[in-house]
């Protein structure tokens, strides 16, 4: 067995690469705790799944970054981020000051500020992706389906050529670049507004 630290390092690298086994392992190890905590704090299992998955995406976004170092264990990180996300969600859902008392709890959050930063970065990215998707939805066919097939569904140019009835992958590629040019105009138009 590798040492835990080493192991976690590998695990994160695998996670960043979208490796399923690593994802399963992390999920298996850490979801239960978050689930238990969330249910004690007014959530349901469905909420726990939402929150935990969002935290995993935050971690995924960070792990993708090459110079990323986690200052605590994966479990601690996921738990802390999940908590923050849940509090934020509660805050959004209700203006009831009683539910805000956790803010004064102080807790063990010595990394709290760093996590807050991670979550903010994550939200900005989500907004950015949202705008991108809006642009994608407005671009019209066949560009919308073609770009989605390539970027979202990870299809090869060969598959796309076959699915969309292009005579060869080269033609599909040319079309893809045309679409990207259009998307660029649309997207940066949307952002400028």
């Amino acid at each position, binding site marked *: 067995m590798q040492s835990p630290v080493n192991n976690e390092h590998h695990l994160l690298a695998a996670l960043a690469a979208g490796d399923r086994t690593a994802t399963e392992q992390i999920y298996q190890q850490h979801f239960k705790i978050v689930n238990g905590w969330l249910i004690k704090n007014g959530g349901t299992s469905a909420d726990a*799944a939402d929150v935990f998955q969002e935290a995993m995406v935050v971690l995924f976004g960070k792990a993708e970054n090459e110079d990323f170092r986690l200052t605590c264990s994966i479990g601690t990180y996921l738990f802390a981020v999940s908590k923050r996300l849940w509090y934020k969600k509660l805050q959004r859902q209700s203006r009831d000051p009683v539910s805000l008392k956790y803010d004064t709890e102080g807790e063990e959050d010595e990394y709290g500020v760093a996590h807050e930063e991670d979550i903010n970065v994550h939200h900005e990215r989500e907004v950015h992706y949202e705008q991108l998707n809006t642009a994608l939805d407005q671009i019209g066919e066949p560009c919308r389906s073609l770009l989605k097939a390539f970027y*979202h569904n990870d299809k090869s140019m060969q598959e796309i050529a076959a699915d969309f009835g292009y005579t060869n992958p080269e033609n599909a590629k040319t079309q893809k670049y045309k679409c990207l040019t259009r998307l660029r105009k649309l997207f940066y138009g949307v952002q400028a507004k």
Partner: protein
Amino acid sequence: MIEVAESYLSGSLPEADLKELNSRLASDVSFANEFHECVNLVRSLEGNGKQKRFRAMLRDVHEKQNAVPVKKTRLINFTPQSWRTAAVAASVAILTSTITIWSLKPSIKKTDSQYSTISREVEHIKRVQAGQQAEQNKLRDIISKNTKAAPPSDVRYTGTGFALTNDGYFVTAYHVIGSDFDSVYIQTHDGQYYKAFLLNYSKENDIAILKVEKKNFHFGKGELPYTFASSKVGLGAHIFTLGYPKEDLVYSEGYISSKNGYQGNEQQYTLQLPAGHGQSGSPVVDENGDILGLLTAISSQAEANTYAVSSKAMISLLHTSTANDISSHLPKVNRLGKLSGAEQVEKMEAYTFSVKVYKK
């Protein structure tokens, strides 16, 4: 330029080109800006796609690890060959119980509406049964006996439908329409009838796409308040449905109890949700106001599992249909997410309606 940005990002740009690029980036500011726009665009597209796949994987991992052992379903007892067989069995069960109640209380005078309810169900069974042959002989005997018991009235099937676009495209379950219909009408919540025609359908997935004939028709004042989930959501998601099992709109709620549908059908969900005849084709909506699917079948009369075709299957039918433009006109902005349950229902009322099918 995008092509260059792409190979620049993937690191496949030849060294000479890279040098040239770098020197131009250093000297030409407006070129550098444009180039960075391209790089950002490609990077965002890739990042977004990667994240989407990661999220999908997470949901899948979650479902696999947290699959609630589903209670032994009573379907097993029937060991049915197909979905249709189960539907026959289920309908027979309902029919038999209805008939039993009726024969137990012969003194109670029946109203017309009760009669038509029975005939609707009988008709449903007959149609389902049409596809079944010798294997169903036993059941058929029961059915034909019962058919005699029910008075033949104006034969029609009813179901529920909901809008795909505000200008008249809508969806319902295919079995509501069937293959031998004469005409299809919808009756909206304000009691108006509109004629509709069939555009496309998938018998296998039990989806039919129709359009209201009337020109300049609109379901409601604004764009649709809901959006369509493009991928399947996980177990335990709370859902509700609106449908027309009777003349008035009926609300019921439940949750997703299993990721796949009948016999592991991946195009479906299994729901814990009370539903009855006439609710086929009803929208299944989650708390955020996303349409997750449409109701298609129930398994038996007591402790019923309800099955819904996923919105994913609906969307892929839209993509394959010749009326290619519908899928790009699907609503993109969700106006239900922040509303309470009652408000969501109110907003959806105009977009959910009864579908009435007249036979040849």
